[in-house]
């Protein structure tokens, strides 16, 4: 799983039926220090996350599609939690 920030929501009229009724979110993966890490990704929402939220994201198909209750669907990422806080041991970096 990775931690990411919700930076946007995607509107898509034509999409696979398994994506209907789920928010399609644009996420910026984060390093532990809060800096951007890599390029934004697209995931389905399961926890009613919104723009600005820091979230936990599964990035593999089986976990993603079963979480959003759409088995056997083309879904490879899902937002599974809104992060309240992260405690780090002293000296831990990104």
């Amino acid at each position, binding site marked *: 799983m990775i931690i990411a920030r919700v930076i946007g929501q995607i*509107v*898509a009229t034509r999409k*696979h039926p398994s994506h209907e009724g789920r928010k399609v979110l*644009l996420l910026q993966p984060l390093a532990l220090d809060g800096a951007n890490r890599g*390029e*934004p990704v*697209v995931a389905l929402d399961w926890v009613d996350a919104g723009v600005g939220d820091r979230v936990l994201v599964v990035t593999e198909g089986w976990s993603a*599609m079963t979480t959003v209750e759409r088995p056997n669907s083309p879904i490879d990422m899902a937002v599974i939690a809104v992060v309240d806080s992260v405690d780090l041991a002293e000296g831990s970096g990104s």
Partner: protein
Amino acid sequence: MFLARVVGRVWATAKDPSLESRKLLVLQPITPDGRERGRTVVAVDAVGAGAGEVVYWCRGRESSFPFLPGEVTTDATVVGIVDQISLAQS
């Protein structure tokens, strides 16, 4: 899943039978503001996307699931056409 722009199409006569009548699209991954990033990739189309459109695509085993019960041999599939992206104010 990832954002990309459709920049072309691949035509192949000799191919795995599961790809018959499937559209093969060339995708250029992009950033949310539309800049190109990284290398192009070829994906099967599941939503009727065409050249110039911004799409999002899925990778891996699950990219063959739109075609169930057919077993289409693909590891990348276009699963949505992006109409609009609402970005956070920054």
